[in-house]
C-alpha cells in the first residue's frame, strides 16, 4: 500500500513531529486495543478490492505474545491420507480448542471463516464459534478465566446475506474494510454488552512490519472536487474543415421548411385543394373482355 500522505498546510493545527507521532501511536493503540478489549468474536469483512489479511496479521501481532500455528492449509480435506492431517479436519481442531485447560488469555485467529463457511453448514459453524468465544462461563471453576478473543476473516462476496448476517450477529466487533483512492478504511461497529452499538470509521495503512499507520482522513484528492485548473478544450478550433456557418447560411437554414414536417400551412393546403393543384386522375375505358367485379377487382380471391 502506498506511503501515507501527511497534509501540512493552512488551517491545520501545527503540531511538532514528535507530538503527532505520539498521538498517532496512541490512536493506533486505541483502535487495536478497543478491538481486542472485548472478548468474543471480531469479524473482519473484506473484499477482493480491499483485503483484510494484513489487518488480521496486525491484530495477531498486537495481541499475541506467543503464537501457535495450526497448519490446516496443506491438507484440510485429508486427501493425502498419510495420517498427518487431523481426523475431523478444521472443525475437529476448532472443537478441540473449545476444551482448553489453561486460564490465560487466548486469541484464536481464523484465516479464513469463508473456507469454513463454504465447507460446513452455517449452523454448525455458528454454534462452534459461539462455544469458542464464550468459554469464560465455566460452571464449577473457581478461578476467573480470561476472555477468549476470536479473530475471523470473512470474504464478503463469497456468501449470501444470510450466513454473513448470522456471523455478524455473533460478533462483538465488526470491521468492514473499504477505501478510496488507494487508501484503506475500516468501518468498525462495536456491540458492547448493555450498550448501544457504536460506529467508528478509521483510515489506515499497514506497514511492512504489520504495525498500523493511522490516517487523519481520506486522501486530499478525494476532498478536492473537480478542480478546473485546465479550461475545457474547444474541439472545433483545430480542424481542417469548416464547421461554422456564415450569416446568410444561418438564415437560409432557419427559413427552410422540412418536407415531411406537418405545419399549419401544409394542413390548409391539403384540406382545400386549389385550382392550381395538379391532382392525378385515372381514365379507364373497359373493353369487351373486362369483367369488373367491384367486390373482387383483381380477381384473386379464392372464394
Amino acid at each position, binding site marked *: 500500500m502506498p506511503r501515507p500522505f501527511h497534509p501540512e498546510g493552512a488551517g491545520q493545527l501545527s503540531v511538532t513531529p514528535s507530538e503527532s507521532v505520539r498521538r498517532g501511536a496512541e490512536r493506533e493503540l486505541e483502535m487495536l486495543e478497543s478491538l481486542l478489549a472485548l472478548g468474543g468474536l471480531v469479524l473482519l469483512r473484506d473484499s477482493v478490492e480491499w483485503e483484510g489479511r494484513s489487518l488480521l496479521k496486525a491484530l495477531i501481532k498486537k495481541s499475541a505474545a506467543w503464537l501457535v500455528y495450526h497448519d490446516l492449509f496443506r491438507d484440510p480435506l485429508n486427501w493425502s491420507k498419510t495420517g498427518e492431517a487431523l481426523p475431523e479436519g478444521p472443525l475437529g481442531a476448532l472443537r478441540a480448542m473449545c476444551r482448553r485447560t489453561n486460564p490465560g488469555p487466548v486469541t484464536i485467529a481464523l484465516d479464513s471463516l469463508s473456507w469454513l463457511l463454504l465447507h460446513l453448514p452455517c449452523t454448525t459453524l455458528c454454534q462452534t464459534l459461539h462455544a469458542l468465544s464464550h468459554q469464560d462461563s465455566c460452571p464449577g471453576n473457581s478461578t476467573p478465566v480470561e476472555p477468549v478473543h476470536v479473530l475471523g476473516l470473512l470474504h464478503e462476496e463469497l456468501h449470501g446475506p444470510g450466513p454473513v448476517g448470522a456471523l455478524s450477529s455473533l460478533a462483538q466487533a465488526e470491521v468492514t474494510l473499504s477505501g478510496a483512492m488507494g487508501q484503506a478504511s475500516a468501518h468498525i461497529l462495536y456491540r458492547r454488552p448493555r450498550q448501544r452499538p457504536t460506529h467508528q470509521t478509521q483510515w489506515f495503512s499497514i506497514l*511492512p512490519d504489520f504495525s498500523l499507520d493511522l490516517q487523519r482522513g481520506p486522501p486530499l484528492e478525494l476532498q478536492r472536487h473537480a478542480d478546473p485548473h485546465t479550461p475545457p478544450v474547444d474541439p472545433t478550433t483545430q480542424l481542417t474543415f469548416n464547421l461554422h456557418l456564415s450569416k446568410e447560411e444561418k438564415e437560409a437554414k432557419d427559413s427552410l421548411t422540412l418536407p415531411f414536417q406537418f405545419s399549419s400551412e401544409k394542413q390548409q393546403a391539403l384540406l382545400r385543394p386549389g385550382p392550381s393543384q395538379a391532382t392525378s386522375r385515372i381514365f379507364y375505358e373497359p373493353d369487351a373482355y373486362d369483367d369488373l367485379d367491384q367486390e373482387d377487382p383483381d380477381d384473386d380471391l379464392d372464394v
Partner: protein
Amino acid sequence: MFPELNHLLNTTPDRAEQGKLTLLCDAKTDGSFLVHHFLSFYLKANCKVCFVALIQSFSHYNIVGQKLGVSLTTARERGQLVFLEGLKSSVDVFFRSQEEPHPLQFLREANTGNLQPLFEFVREALKPGDNAEAAWRCPVLLVDDLSVLLSLGVGAVAVLDFIHYCRATVCCELKGNIVTLVHDSGDAEDEENDVLLNGLSHQSHLILRAEGLATGFCRDVHGQVCRGWDLGVLLDSRLLASVPDSRLHVGVLLGLRACLVGAYLQMEVV
C-alpha cells in the same frame, strides 16, 4: 509470448518469479491469448509445465505456440510438457475399466464429489523426478479453463478445493507457479461462477483481466487488459515502487481464435 505483456508485468523468462498464483479473467472478450502467452513464456523459461487443456485440442495450442516461438510437440517429447488433452481423454473415461481413477473421473459420476483424481494427476506430473530431470527450472501448472468445470457439473467449492491443493503442492511445496483462466459471466448472474472467481481472486498474487472495450466493438482494438495485484501479498516495497497502474489496449487478430492465420498482437500502452 508477447514482449509487451512481459514489459507490463516487468518480467522476462530469465527472471520468472516462483510460488505465484496468477488468475486470468476475461469479460466480454476472449482471454485465451493470455493462456498462449503464459504457455510459451514458461516453456521458454525452461520450466516443467503441466497443461490441463479442457477447451481446445493439442494441435490448436501447437499451431499457436509455433507462431509464438515454441514447439509443443518437441517439449512433450523431451518431457518438459505434460499435456492433458481434455477433449480426447474425456472419451477414454467411458471406455476403460474402473480400476485406476482417471483424471477426468468426475465426468462419470452422477454426484461429482471432488477433483482429487485430477489433483493426483497434476501432482504426479510435476513431482520432481530423478536427477536426470533436474534441468527444469520450476514446475508450472496451467489450466484452460476452470469455468468449463462448472459447466460439466463440478461445484464451485470443489474447484476451489482443487486449486487450494494445487497451491499447497505446486506453489508452496515445489515453489512453482499456477496460471488459470476463469471467465467472468458479467451480467449473466452466474452465482457459482462468481463464487469461483471471487474465491480465486482472494488467493491470487496477480490478476490479469481482459475486457472488451466499454464503447463497443472495434476492428483493430479488441479490448484492454487490466492488471491487479492482490495487496494481501504485496508488502514488498520494491514491487510497489515499480508497478504503476496501467492499461494495455489489445488488438488480437482473429488468427488466435481460428488458429489459421497466426497470432499478431498490437499493443499500445496507454
